[in-house]
């Protein structure tokens, strides 16, 4: 019988398995370490970090929808100094990769936070150009091909660690943006961020979220994410990290078959705090049962002709 190896490689860095957390759904891991073993994860992708602390948006920030939820948190975070002082030392105690997610209002803010983080002990950076909940920065960069390329170039200049660019699904042609960031120096792309959405309270006759619109996540967005990962994996040569509604191992395996080298478990952590660990274990069982020796073999196994 073949040995089952879950390890994957992103820009020369080996991850013990392909399962990561999605930024903004896992804090920096502290909230989850009492009921799961962080050593089980390929990587912990931390909540978005800006140069200075951000307040985020006023409440209500959360709305439930069929098969998922909307959020308009707006990247509330305590800033890069707090991240360096508290979160990196905490995560270093575990045998998992640390991925910092970068946010900013402008090119210079993104550049500044990337510079600071490049001097730290993190393993990789994820450039967040796809958050739909901030007026400046975020998705304004990720929904315009030229701007996406420009910001990737700027951050690439100051980032010597592997650089992942997180893409927005709220575009006409996601492959075009993926190609643009690849040719600007991205080592990998992650997709999808949340889908722009809205809910209305019919009795109060008002939008449920204070920001009116927010980002939708959860199992209901998974088919959109699978389609986009499938398209992007065929458009670029760099690794694709697939995410969007993964709740079970079967969901994650769909992404691997669509061409994702790794997967992210996101808001499912809210529905089941142990979701990511269950996904790791389930992928291993699937590989053993189906005779796959590596994640790459799954990536190449889709019959779509």
């Amino acid at each position, binding site marked *: 019988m073949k040995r089952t190896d879950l390890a994957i490689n992103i820009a020369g860095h080996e991850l013990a398995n392909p399962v990561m957390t999605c930024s903004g759904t896992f804090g920096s891991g502290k909230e989850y370490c*009492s*009921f799961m073993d962080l050593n089980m994860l390929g990587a912990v992708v931390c909540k978005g970090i800006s140069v200075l602390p951000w307040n985020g948006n006023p409440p209500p920030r959360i709305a439930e929808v069929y*098969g998922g939820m909307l959020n308009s*948190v707006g990247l509330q975070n305590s800033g890069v100094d707090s991240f360096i002082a508290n979160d990196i030392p905490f995560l270093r105690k575990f045998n998992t990769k640390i991925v910092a997610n970068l946010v900013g209002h402008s090119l210079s803010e993104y550049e500044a936070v990337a510079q600071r983080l490049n001097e730290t002990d993190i393993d990789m950076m994820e450039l967040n150009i796809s958050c739909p909940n901030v007026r400046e920065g975020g998705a304004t960069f990720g929904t315009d091909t030229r701007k996406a390329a420009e910001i990737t170039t700027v951050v690439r200049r100051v980032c010597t660690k592997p650089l992942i660019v997180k893409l927005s699904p709220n575009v006409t042609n996601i492959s075009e943006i993926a190609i643009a960031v690849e040719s600007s120096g991205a080592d990998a792309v992650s997709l999808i961020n949340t889908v722009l959405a809205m809910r209305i309270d019919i009795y109060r006759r008002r939008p449920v979220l204070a920001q009116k619109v927010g980002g939708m996540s959860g199992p209901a967005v998974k088919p959109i994410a699978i389609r986009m990962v499938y398209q992007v994996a065929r458009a670029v040569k760099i690794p694709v990290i697939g995410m969007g509604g993964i709740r079970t191992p079967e969901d994650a395996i769909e992404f691997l078959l669509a061409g994702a080298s790794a997967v992210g478990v996101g808001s499912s952590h*809210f529905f089941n*705090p142990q979701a990511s660990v269950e996904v790791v274990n389930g992928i291993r069982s699937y590989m053993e049962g189906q005779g796959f020796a590596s994640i790459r073999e799954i990536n190449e196994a889709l019959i779509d002709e």
Partner: protein
Amino acid sequence: MKLFIASIIQNHAIAHGIYEMVIHAPEIALHAVPGQFVNLYPHLESTLLPRPISISDVDYSGGHVHLAYALVGTGTKLFATLRVADTVTVLGPLGNGYAIPDSIQNPLLVAGGVGTPPMIFLARSLRMPVMIYLGFRSSTPYFVERLAEFGVVRVATEDGSDGYKGNVVNLMDKHGAEGDIVYSCGPRPMLKAVQEWSKSKHIPTQLSLEERMGCGIGSCVGCIVKIKENNYQGWNYKKVCHDGPVFLGEKVIFS
């Protein structure tokens, strides 16, 4: 905090639209403090998010945790259909509960509507006679008899259908309520009135807040409230689920 599959010991209506569920969860019973809550997971496609439910009482010896909830939507309506011996996925105890300073002698408990249940656990933990003021809309007041075990209970209803007609703060003024600490839980307008009342009387106050929650454990940053802080803007958004739900009264900014 840990994730448990707990079996249901009791689950029945105690008033119109209000249920009490008793679960067997010895570890939660052992570690919980008043004012904390648990997450109950509905596991439905239509409602995937956990429901934060306040702990109304615990029975350490039996390992029982009492949870009270109002039927407000799909999740809580599902919980109401659960029967004795069914199981429920529960995470807890969660959040920061009420602090009980050693020096206090004369606690005043003020609650409104579904803010009433945690007062039972609090009154039991205080281990001293308490004064309890409860406010309800028009529905039948509940938990009044159980709270009477711990001290004098006075009730206000907005429509006067039971007890004093009016709001709970007016009732406190009418009786010249006093205390060396105020513990409160209930809807925002009531908490705001209690905050002002306590401030005018210079009584330290702890308020338990409610906000729409996502994860219940501090990771989604959905349930935030403005809390006074010594920074450039004078406040910070704090997480109700993780930094609260109980906050010092003078720190809360009701906007």
